[in-house]
C-alpha cells in the first residue's frame, strides 16, 4: 500500500508518498548507511504518477511538475518513522531514541490551479492500496473551503507589492475576504493542521511558516489561480477604438492583469505608488469595523408595534459588547455621556460617541436611509416604511453583518414559515379501489396544490388580495410574512396554467413532500397532507405512527425478540403497499430470521393460494450454506431449493423445479450468469442479502438483478447505507426505481454535497426521503440493548469454493485408500493428519498448499470473514479473531490489512512478552488504534484482557467448547460494557459441520470424551470416518 501526503510550499503543492513495500525492503537492507539522506521508503516520482492518475485522471497528471523537498520528520537511528496510516510491521521499533531528522523526498508538483482541481477531485472511496495521510486530508479540506469561498464570491481584487532586487514590484491579484464565521473557520483549520504540513522550509525562507499564514497563503493562491482561469476567456475592459498598447493607463492595466497570466503592472514608480495608494484606500472599505474593540455598533429592526397606530418600522442604534452580544447600550445613553468613558452595567466603553458616529458614517454606504437620521445632532433611531424595512432585511442587514456590525432582526425573518409556500394534498384517485393493494411508488394518486403562508392555507382570491397590497412584507393573521416578487409571479403563473391539481405517482408525491424541494410551482413546499387511506399511509411511513404488530406464525421454530417482531411487521407493512424495503439492522440483530418470519407470515396468509411464485434469495456464495441452515432450522415447513453448483438446473427444468419450492437461494454471480433462466419467472420476492453487492450500478450483475420480475423487493444489509451514498442510491433504485432520481441527479443533489462537503441540510433531507424505506437499528440503541443477551453465539456456515472442494475430495480419497491398510498408531496418525489437512483446506487452499499464492476468491470462510469485518469496522467496533494455525494468522493479517486498509495485530507464540503487552495496550487503549486482533488459540486463548473487542471470531474450531469459551472470554469478561457477538465459522457439508453436530448432540456427555481435543476421532471405525469426512453436495458454493 501507499500513503499519499501533500505539502504546500507557498507557491505549489507537492505530492509525495510512503510505500509499505519499500519500507519492507528498506527494513531488510538498513545496513546501507544513509549517505544520500534520501527518504528510504518514499516513492520515486514516476511511481507517484500512477496513483495520482488513478485518483484524478490522466489529464491532471500531464500538468504535474517535479520537485524535491527536504522534510524534517520523526526518525530513529534506523531511519524515518512511517506515518500512522502506513500499515507495516512496526512492533520492533524502539521509539526511545526517536528524534527529528532531515530527509530528502521526490515530489510531484502542482501549480495552484491544478492543486485545487486535484484536491477537489479526490474520491470518497479510495482505490485499493491507497491511503491518505493527514496532510492530504488537511489540504483537501482547505481546498473545499476555498472552493466554497469562491462560489460565495468572497474574494476581492487587490494590489500586491513585493520587493525584488531593491525595487518594488506591483502585481494585481485576487485575495480571499474572510469575515465573521469564515474567519473562525479559517482559524479552526489553522489549529487542526498536522505538523507534517510545515515540516519543510519554504523556498527563500529561513524559518518554517506558521499554520495561519500557510492556510491563508493557500487560500489566496488557489483563489487567484481559479479566478484568473475563469476570466481568461472574457475581457473586463470596455471595447474602445484606437487602443494603444503603449502607455496603457494603470486602471486598465490592473483590470487586464487581474484576468490574465501576467499580473505585473508597469508604469513609473510615482504613478504606481499613487495608484496603489488609491487602490488601498478604496479597499479599506471592506475591512470589517475594528473587531478588537470591546464594543461595536448594532442596528436593531423592530416591526410596527400593534398598539401604536403607525405602520412605521424602526431601526435603533445601539452599542453592543463584543464579548457579550446580549449587552446592548441604547444610543440615548451614549449621547448623554459627557465623559470619554461610558459605564454601563459595570462595563466600560471608551469613546462611545466616536465609535457610534464613525460606524454610522460607514454604514450609510450600505444602508443609505441611515443618512436621514444623521441630520440630527444626536441620532438614535430611524423610521422606515415597509419597503425600506424589506430592503434592509433582504440586503442591507447581511451587508452590515459582513462589515462587522451587529444586526438584530425580528425572529420570524429567518424562519421558514415566514414565507410564501405551497402545501401538497394527496388523495386516492377518484374511482380507485379503497384498498390500494399493490400500489407501489408508481401507483397514481390525485393531488392538489394550495398556497400557504406559514400554517395558513389561502384560497386563490385571498392570495390575490394579498398580492394586490403590493408590499413585500405582509401580516397574515398576526404573523409577518415575506412576499418575494419572483415567488408571487411563480405562483400566479402556476395557477393560471394548471389550476394546481392533477395526478402524479405516489413516489413523486412522497419525494416532493419529504424532500421539501422547491416544487414545480416554484415555491417552497411547506407540507404534504394525505386524505383517506393515504393519510394513514403517510402517518405510518413518515410520522412514526405505530404499525400493527404481526403474530409470529406457528410455523416459525424459534422465538423472536420484540424488536424483531417490529422489524417483520414493518416489512409486512411496506409489502402491503408494494414498496421495496431495506432492512439495514446492525450485524447480529437477526435480519435473517426476520426475513424468514416474513416468508412464513406470507405463506400463512396465503390460504393455499398457490398462485404466488417462489421467493428468490440472492446472496454471496459464502453464505448460501448459512441461509440454508437457518431456513431449515427456523422454518422447516418452507421448501428450499439451492440453485448453484455444476449440476444446477436450467431453462424449463429450472422453472418447474423453482415453482415447486418456496425459496430459491442463489448467488450474485449466478444471478448474472443464469439470468436467462431466472428472468422468465414471476418471483413473489427478490431478496438481496449483503445488498452492498449491488452498489455498482454499472455492473452487469446489478443490471441483471434489477431486471428480475418481482412483486416485492427486499434488501438486507448490515453496513450503514446512509453513509455510503452511491450504494444507497443503487439499493434504492433496485427497491423503488426512480424514487431518488437518476444517478446523475442524485450525485449532484446529495452525494457531492453530503460526502464532499458534509452539508448537514442535504443529509437531513436525504434522511427524510429514505426514512420510510430503510429500517436500521443499532445494537447500541437503548430499546435494542434491553432485548439482547450480553453474549450472543452464532454459527456462521460457510461454503467451500470449487478449488477447496477438489482438494478436500482428493485428500479424503487418498486417506480412505490408505486407511484400509493401516492400523494402530499409524492409523491414528493418518486420521489426525487428514483431519489437519482438511481443516487447512476449509480455512484456505493457500494454507494447505503453503505456496505463498494469492488469497482472494479462493475460500468461502475468508470471503465471509472479510464481509463481516467490513461491517464491524463500519460500525466502529473492534474484533478478535482466533485461529489455531499460526500460518493462517500470518496470511489473514496481511490479507486483512491490505483489503480493509487498517492495521491488524497478530499475537502468536513467537512474540516476546514486552511486545505482547504493547499490542494489548494499543488494542485496548488507542482510540484509533488497530481495530482487529488476530490471536493464535495457544498464545492468546487465556489470561489476556481484550474487552475493547465486542466481536469474537473463531475462524477454525478446536472442537472443545471449554477452550473456545475461554478464548471468547478474552472479550466477554469484567470490564466489557457492550454485548459481545461470537461468530463460530464452519464449512457446511464438511467434517467441520459434522463434528459440530456430534458435539451438539453429545453436549451432555462427559467432557472426557471430547474434552481432550481431537483424539477421540481416531477411535472411529472406517465407515464412520468415511461418513464424517465425506463431502456433501451442498458444501460447494460454485
Amino acid at each position, binding site marked *: 500500500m501507499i500513503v499519499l501526503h501533500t505539502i504546500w510550499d507557498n507557491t505549489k503543492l507537492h505530492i509525495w508518498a510512503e510505500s509499505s513495500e519499500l519500507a519492507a525492503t528498506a527494513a531488510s537492507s538498513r545496513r546501507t548507511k544513509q549517505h544520500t539522506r534520501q527518504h528510504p521508503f518514499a516513492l520515486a516520482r514516476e511511481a507517484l504518477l500512477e496513483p495520482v492518475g488513478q485518483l484524478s485522471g490522466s489529464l491532471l497528471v500531464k500538468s504535474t511538475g517535479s520537485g524535491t523537498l527536504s522534510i524534517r520528520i520523526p526518525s530513529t537511528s534506523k531511519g524515518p518513522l512511517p506515518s500512522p496510516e502506513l500499515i507495516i510491521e512496526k512492533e520492533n521499533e524502539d521509539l526511545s531514541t526517536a528524534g527529528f531528522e532531515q530527509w530528502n523526498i521526490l515530489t510531484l508538483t502542482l501549480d495552484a490551479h491544478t492543486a485545487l482541481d486535484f484536491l477537489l477531485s479526490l474520491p470518497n472511496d479510495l482505490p485499493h492500496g491507497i491511503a491518505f495521510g*493527514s496532510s492530504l486530508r488537511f489540504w483537501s479540506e482547505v481546498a*473545499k473551503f476555498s472552493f466554497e469561498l469562491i462560489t460565495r464570491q468572497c474574494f476581492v481584487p487587490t494590489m500586491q507589492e513585493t520587493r525584488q532586487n531593491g525595487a518594488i514590484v506591483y502585481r494585481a491579484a485576487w485575495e480571499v475576504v474572510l469575515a465573521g464565521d469564515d474567519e473562525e473557520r479559517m482559524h479552526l483549520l489553522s489549529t487542526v493542521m*498536522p505538523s507534517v504540513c510545515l515540516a519543510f522550509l519554504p523556498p527563500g525562507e529561513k524559518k518554517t511558516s506558521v*499554520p495561519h499564514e500557510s492556510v491563508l497563503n493557500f487560500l489566496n493562491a488557489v483563489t487567484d489561480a481559479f479566478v484568473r482561469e475563469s476570466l481568461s476567456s472574457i475581457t473586463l475592459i470596455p471595447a474602445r477604438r484606437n487602443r494603444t498598447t503603449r*502607455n496603457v493607463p494603470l486602471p*486598465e492595466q490592473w483590470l487586464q492583469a487581474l484576468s490574465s497570466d501576467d499580473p505585473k503592472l508597469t508604469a513609473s514608480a510615482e504613478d504606481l505608488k499613487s495608484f496603489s495608494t488609491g487602490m488601498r484606500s478604496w479597499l479599506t472599505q471592506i475591512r470589517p469595523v475594528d473587531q478588537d474593540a470591546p464594543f461595536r455598533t448594532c442596528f436593531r429592526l423592530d416591526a410596527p408595534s400593534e398598539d401604536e397606530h403607525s405602520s412605521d418600522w424602526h431601526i435603533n442604534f445601539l452599542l453592543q459588547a463584543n464579548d457579550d452580544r446580549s449587552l446592548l447600550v441604547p444610543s440615548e445613553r451614549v449621547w448623554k455621556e459627557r465623559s470619554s468613558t461610558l459605564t454601563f452595567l459595570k462595563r466600560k466603553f471608551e469613546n462611545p*460617541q466616536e465609535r457610534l458616529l464613525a460606524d454610522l458614517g460607514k454604514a450609510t454606504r450600505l444602508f443609505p436611509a441611515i443618512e436621514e437620521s444623521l441630520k440630527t445632532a444626536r441620532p438614535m433611531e430611524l423610521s422606515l416604511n415597509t419597503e425600506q424595512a424589506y430592503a434592509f432585511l433582504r440586503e442591507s442587514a447581511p451587508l452590515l453583518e459582513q462589515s462587522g456590525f451587529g444586526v438584530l432582526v425580528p425572529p420570524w425573518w429567518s424562519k421558514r414559515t415566514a414565507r410564501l409556500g405551497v402545501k401538497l394534498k394527496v388523495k386516492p384517485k377518484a374511482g380507485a379501489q379503497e384498498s390500494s393493494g399493490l400500489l407501489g411508488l408508481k401507483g397514481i394518486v390525485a393531488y392538489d396544490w394550495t398556497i400557504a403562508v406559514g400554517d395558513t392555507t389561502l384560497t386563490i382570491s385571498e392570495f390575490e388580495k394579498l398580492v394586490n397590497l403590493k408590499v413585500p412584507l405582509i401580516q397574515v393573521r398576526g404573523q409577518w410574512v415575506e412576499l418575494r416578487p419572483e415567488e408571487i409571479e411563480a405562483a400566479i403563473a402556476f395557477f393560471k396554467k394548471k389550476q394546481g391539481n392533477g395526478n402524479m405517482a405516489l413516489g413523486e408525491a412522497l419525494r416532493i413532500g419529504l424532500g421539501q424541494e422547491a416544487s414545480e410551482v416554484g415555491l417552497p413546499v411547506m407540507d404534504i397532507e394525505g386524505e383517506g387511506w393515504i393519510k394513514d399511509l403517510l402517518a405510518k411511513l413518515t410520522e412514526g405512527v405505530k404499525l400493527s404488530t404481526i403474530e409470529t406464525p406457528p410455523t416459525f421454530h424459534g422465538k423472536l425478540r420484540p424488536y424483531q417482531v417490529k422489524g417483520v411487521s414493518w416489512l409486512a407493512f411496506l409489502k402491503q403497499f408494494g414498496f421495496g424495503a431495506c432492512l439495514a439492522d446492525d450485524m447480529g440483530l437477526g435480519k435473517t430470521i426476520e426475513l424468514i418470519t416474513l416468508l412464513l407470515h406470507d405463506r400463512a396468509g396465503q390460504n393455499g393460494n398457490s398462485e404466488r411464485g417462489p421467493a428468490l434469495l440472492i446472496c454471496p456464495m459464502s453464505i448460501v450454506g448459512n441461509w440454508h441452515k437457518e431456513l431449515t432450522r427456523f422454518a422447516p415447513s418452507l421448501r428450499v431449493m439451492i440453485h448453484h453448483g455444476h449440476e444446477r438446473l436450467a431453462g424449463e427444468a429450472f422453472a418447474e423445479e423453482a415453482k415447486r419450492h418456496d425459496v430459491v437461494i442463489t448467488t450474485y454471480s449466478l444471478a448474472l450468469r443464469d439470468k436467462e433462466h431466472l428472468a422468465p419467472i414471476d418471483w413473489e420476492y427478490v431478496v438481496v442479502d449483503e445488498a452492498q453487492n449491488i452498489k455498482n450500478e454499472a455492473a452487469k450483475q446489478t443490471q441483471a438483478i434489477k431486471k428480475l420480475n418481482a412483486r416485492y423487493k427486499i434488501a438486507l444489509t448490515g453496513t450503514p447505507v446512509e453513509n455510503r451514498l452511491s450504494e444507497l442510491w443503487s439499493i434504492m433504485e433496485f427497491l423503488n426505481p426512480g424514487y431518488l432520481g437518476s444517478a446523475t441527479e442524485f450525485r449532484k443533489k446529495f452525494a457531492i454535497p453530503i460526502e464532499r462537503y458534509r452539508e448537514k441540510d442535504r443529509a437531513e433531507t436525504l434522511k427524510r426521503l429514505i426514512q420510510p424505506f430503510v429500517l436500521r437499528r443499532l445494537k447500541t440503541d437503548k430499546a435494542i440493548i434491553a432485548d439482547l443477551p450480553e453474549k450472543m453465539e452464532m454459527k456462521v456456515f460457510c461454503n467451500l469454493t470449487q478449488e477447496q472442494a477438489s482438494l478436500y475430495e482428493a485428500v479424503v480419497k487418498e486417506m480412505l485408500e490408505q486407511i484400509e491398510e493401516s492400523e494402530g498408531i499409524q492409523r491414528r496418525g493418518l486420521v489426525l493428519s487428514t483431519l489437519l489437512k482438511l481443516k487447512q483446506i476449509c480455512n484456505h487452499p493457500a494454507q494447505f498448499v503453503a505456496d505463498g499464492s494469492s488469497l482472494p476468491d479462493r475460500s468461502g470462510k475468508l470471503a465471509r470473514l472479510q464481509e463481516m469485518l467490513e461491517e464491524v469496522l463500519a460500525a466502529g467496533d473492534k474484533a478478535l479473531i482466533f485461529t489455531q494455525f499460526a500460518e493462517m494468522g500470518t496470511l489473514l493479517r496481511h490479507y486483512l490489512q491490505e483489503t480493509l486498509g487498517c492495521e491488524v495485530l497478530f499475537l502468536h507464540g513467537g512474540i516476546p512478552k514486552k511486545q505482547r503487552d504493547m499490542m494489548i495496550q494499543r488494542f485496548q487503549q488507542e482510540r484509533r488504534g488497530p481495530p482487529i486482533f488476530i490471536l493464535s488459540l495457544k498464545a492468546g486463548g487465556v489470561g489476556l484482557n481484550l474487552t475493547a473487542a465486542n466481536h469474537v471470531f473463531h475462524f477454525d474450531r478446536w472442537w472443545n467448547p471449554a477452550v473456545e469459551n475461554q478464548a471468547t472470554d478474552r472479550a466477554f469478561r469484567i470490564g466489557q460494557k457492550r454485548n459481545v457477538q461470537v461468530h463460530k465459522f464452519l464449512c457446511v457439508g464438511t467434517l467441520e459441520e459434522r463434528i459440530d453436530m456430534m458435539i451438539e448432540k453429545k453436549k451432555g456427555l462427559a467432557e472426557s470424551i471430547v474434552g481432550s481435543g481431537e483424539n477421540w476421532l481416531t477411535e472411529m471405525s472406517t465407515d464412520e470416518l468415511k461418513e464424517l469426512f465425506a463431502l456433501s453436495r451442498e458444501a460447494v458454493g460454485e
Partner: protein
Amino acid sequence: MGRWRDDYDDWGYYEPSHPIRVQGGIKTKKEHGQIGETWWSKRWIAVLESFNMGTRLTRGRSYARQGQVISIDVEPGMVQAKVQGSQPKPYKVEIRFKTLSDQDWENVTEAMASQAIFAAKLLAGEMPKNIEEAFGAVKLSLFPTALKELETSCSCPDWANPCKHIAAVYYLLAERFDEDPFLIFKLRGRTKEQIIEVLREKRAATLPAESASPSTSESSTGAENSALLEERLDTFWQAGEALDTFAVKPGVPEIDKAILKRLGNAPFAIGNQNIATLLSKAYSVIEAAALQKGEK
C-alpha cells in the same frame, strides 16, 4: 524665436508648443475623458473650468496627461509644483489658497456639529456630501468659487494667469482629492484631525484625541496567536479531530456581489465606467464557473 513663442500659444498663430518630455512625471490616471472620480474632485474641476481659461485649460489638461508635472507638494494653504515646459529649467507653480480665519472655522464647525453626519462621515474616512451646506450656512465655501480665492503664480513667461502649467497642476490635484478628500481642508488651513477634534469638543464631551480612523496596517488576524507548531514526535502526523467534521457549503452568495457593494465606487474609471462596475461582470463569471465545477 520659437524658444519663447511656443509658450504663447494662446495667441493662436504660433506653432504648437513642444515641451520637453519628462521621464517619470506625474500623469493623470486616465488618458481620455473626465478627470476626477469622486463628487468632490469633480466639484474642484468644475471650479477650474468655470474660470473660462479657453485653450490654456485644454493645454493644461494634456500637460497633466503627458506627465509634464514633475512634483506636487501640498502644504497647509499652499500647493507647490514643478512643471516641465519647453525651457530646460522646469517652471515653479504655486497655488495659494485663502485659508479660513479661526473665526470662520469656528462658525463652520459649529454648523457641522448640528448634524451627526459630518462627524460620522469624516470618522468613516469619507467627505460628507453636504459639506458645502455646512460652509454655506455660515456664508463660506469649502471649494474656491472665484479666481480671487486662489492666488496662483508660475515662473513661465506667459502673462496669462492661470497659465496651462497651473491648469495642469490643478487637474492633478483633482486626482489627489480622489485619493484623499481631506487635502482640501488642509488647503483651507485645517487638517481632518483638527476638525474631528473640534467636533468632538462641540459635542460637549471632553474626549481625548484617539484614532478612530481605519488602520492601514496589514491584517494581522491570528498570525501572532498561532505559534509555531510544536515539534512533537507523537502528534507529528496527527490532524486535529475537528478536521473530520469540517463542513463546507458551496453555493450562491447571500447577497450578490456583496464585496462590490461594500466597496462602493472606486476612485478609478476606464472611459466613463467605474472600475467597480467593470468588476461586477467578473464576479458573475467566476461564481458561475465555480458552481459548474462543483457539480463535477
